[in-house]
């Protein structure tokens, strides 16, 4: 079910999908209830269906890619990672049920779902069961404080705000207006509390911020409003089709200035706007042409597996989360893997400077070094592809 579903419909369909999910949930574990010394069971409570299934599917693909690579390379000796996928259906209650089952199973680590509500509800279960939970994507500030077993690998826009601000200033743009998704708390907060002050600090005049509901599709009147006062640039802090729709509306109403945005413009979201989207820039965790060795390796593996697809940040996130886990396991030697040894491994990994993943050199930041930070990269969209403008530094926001 996608966003367009009406409430009763979502309910009916949700029940149906939940039923499917529970039956197919553990199909990949091979039924190995008792972990033999040779297997390392882990569970990913993923948004396989529902609101953010387009994210879940990609994260799963990336994670599977990492599992295949790790198991065949022998970097964990003879031990093999066995990944179980449990479908949260992008729904908090389902996610909680699936997480409860996962921590009761023999999984030595769990990977949490993407939505903040799901992540916040499931993490305490992992913490109580003393099993490492590597959250994927949730940016919520309340997530990491849940406890010492909670880790997070997320493409946080906050991390990249400096990259964008710096570039806006570098282009000599004196003014900007920002439109944000008013019903998206993360984007609203980010716009008003971070982007605006940071832009002002860099000498860019913010002529105004405009909130708009995510359901809007017809943007011509908004475009006219944004253009008034002739801002030299316009920032889009919106999600989904609003990105290409806004770019189209702005260009068709004659706007000639620079348009920039945030990471939801990645993964081909700008394709519908065609060449009107050329020159649009934003920051992401990963893009196909990253120059790092570990990134190239991921890109190559991905292309082998999915020759017709373009890898994007979500694929890279799934891959990196699994890479972080594997590195922790290898740091703890070749003995049997337990929940306790995974935690120790993670702590060692954090202290020893992280790992090399799809997004490049990735380190552990934050007060207790449980926030896994990738370097990030500023890209410009041109003729249907992302082009690197500037490489980021891991943990950039920590230095600010």
């Amino acid at each position, binding site marked *: *079910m*996608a*966003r*367009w*579903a*009406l409430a*009763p*419909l979502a309910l009916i*369909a949700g029940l149906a999908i939940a039923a499917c999910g529970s039956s197919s949930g553990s199909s990949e574990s091979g039924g190995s209830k008792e972990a033999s010394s040779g297997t390392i069971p882990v569970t990913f409570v993923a948004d396989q269906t529902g609101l953010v*299934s*387009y994210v879940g599917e990609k994260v799963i693909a990336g994670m599977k890619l990492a599992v295949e690579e790790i198991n065949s390379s022998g970097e964990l000796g003879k031990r093999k990672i066995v990944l179980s996928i449990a479908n949260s259906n992008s729904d908090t209650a389902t996610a909680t049920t699936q997480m409860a089952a996962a921590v009761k199973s023999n999984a030595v680590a769990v990977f949490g779902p993407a939505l903040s509500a799901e992540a916040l509800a499931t993490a305490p279960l992992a913490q109580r069961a003393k099993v490492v939970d590597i959250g994927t994507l949730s940016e919520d500030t309340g997530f990491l404080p849940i406890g010492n077993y909670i880790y997070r690998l997320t493409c946080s826009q906050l991390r990249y705000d400096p990259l964008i601000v710096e570039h806006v200033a570098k282009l000599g743009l004196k003014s900007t207006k920002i439109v944000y998704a*008013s*019903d998206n708390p993360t984007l609203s907060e980010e716009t008003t509390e971070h982007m605006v002050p940071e832009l002002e600090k860099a000498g860019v005049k913010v002529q105004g911020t*405009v*909130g*708009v*509901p995510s*359901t*809007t*599709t*017809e943007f*011509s*009147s*908004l475009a*006219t*409003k944004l*253009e008034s006062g002739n801002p030299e640039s316009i920032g889009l802090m919106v999600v*989904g*089709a609003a*990105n*290409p*729709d*806004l*770019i*189209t*509306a702005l260009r*068709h*109403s*004659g706007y000639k200035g620079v348009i920039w945005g945030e990471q939801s413009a990645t*993964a*081909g*979201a700008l*394709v*519908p*706007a*065609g*060449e*009107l989207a050329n020159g649009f820039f934003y920051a992401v965790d990963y893009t196909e042409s990253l120059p790092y060795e570990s990134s190239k390796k991921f890109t190559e593996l991905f292309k082998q597996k999915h020759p017709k697809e373009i890898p994007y940040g979500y694929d890279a996130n799934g891959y990196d989360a699994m890479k972080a886990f594997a590195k922790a396991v290898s740091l703890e030697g070749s003995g049997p893997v337990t929940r306790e040894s995974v935690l120790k491994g993670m702590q060692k990994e954090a202290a020893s400077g992280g790992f090399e993943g799809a997004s490049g050199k990735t380190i552990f930041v934050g007060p207790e070094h449980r926030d896994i930070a990738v370097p990030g990269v500023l890209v410009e969209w041109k003729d249907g592809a992302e082009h690197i403008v500037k490489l980021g530094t891991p943990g950039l926001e920590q230095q600010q």
Partner: protein
Amino acid sequence: MLQQLINAIVFGSVLTLFSLGLSLAWGTLDVLNLAHGAVFVFAGFITYELTKDSTMSFVPTLIVASLAAGAVTLALELVAFRRIRLHFPARRQAELSMLVVSVGAATVIGEVVSHQTSEAAFSPPASAFSIHRYSLGGSVGITNIQILIVVAAIIVAVALDQGIRRTRYGRAIRALAYDPTTTQLLGVNVGAVAAATMFLAGALAGLAGVMLAIYLGGEEVATGQDYLLTAFAILIVGGVGSIRGAIVSAYLIALAETAVVAYGPSQWRDGVAFLLILVMLLVRPQGLFARRRFQRA
């Protein structure tokens, strides 16, 4: 100011194109077709499929996609709505069943489209229709697709209004809406008229879907649902089943929403439609242009 007025007229035309088919089906056959939005997106999807790898030009694409949307709605009528009508002679029961069926149909169509497009927004390539902007002095301007939408909305609105008033088919539709039994006894093949009406309603959704796919920049399955909600407001404000009411209220709501976006807190844009529904239901529940038969209930 002038630019915002143009924006409002274009938006009103978009809403008119979208709402007329819905109004027609609801007003004459009591089908509140919640799949209307999905059919609308389906037409946009067909446009995208027809144009993405080929050089099919705009007019044939428009025709094929509109007919496809009409055919989908016709299939719904023949497979479900007609049977329900025969099965439940009581209007209210039939209405509810058709509502549920149309929600199901919306899901199926939506799933097909989102599966085919991997849930991403889609848009026909620029080669399908090249957009130009004509300056009207200063920063005011209008694009060719906007002009086309306004012209199409006017043609469709006038043709439908006059067709319903003046043609034999139109008289049959109005009679059918008022009293199906008597209409059939007068020799009208009500099944054929209902089928033709649903086809027309679907084709109108399709026409809107094609134009919007080009105009918006990116359409996704959610787009149809968003328009559906605004269309409800239009039907309620205009008076259910009134073609003229739907047209007038489409432009009214467009004007109100544009004013909110332009001069007020734009995040309340959606609130306008619902506020109007609420006010209308309290003050004049039969709508601006009520039809007699709804006063009986």
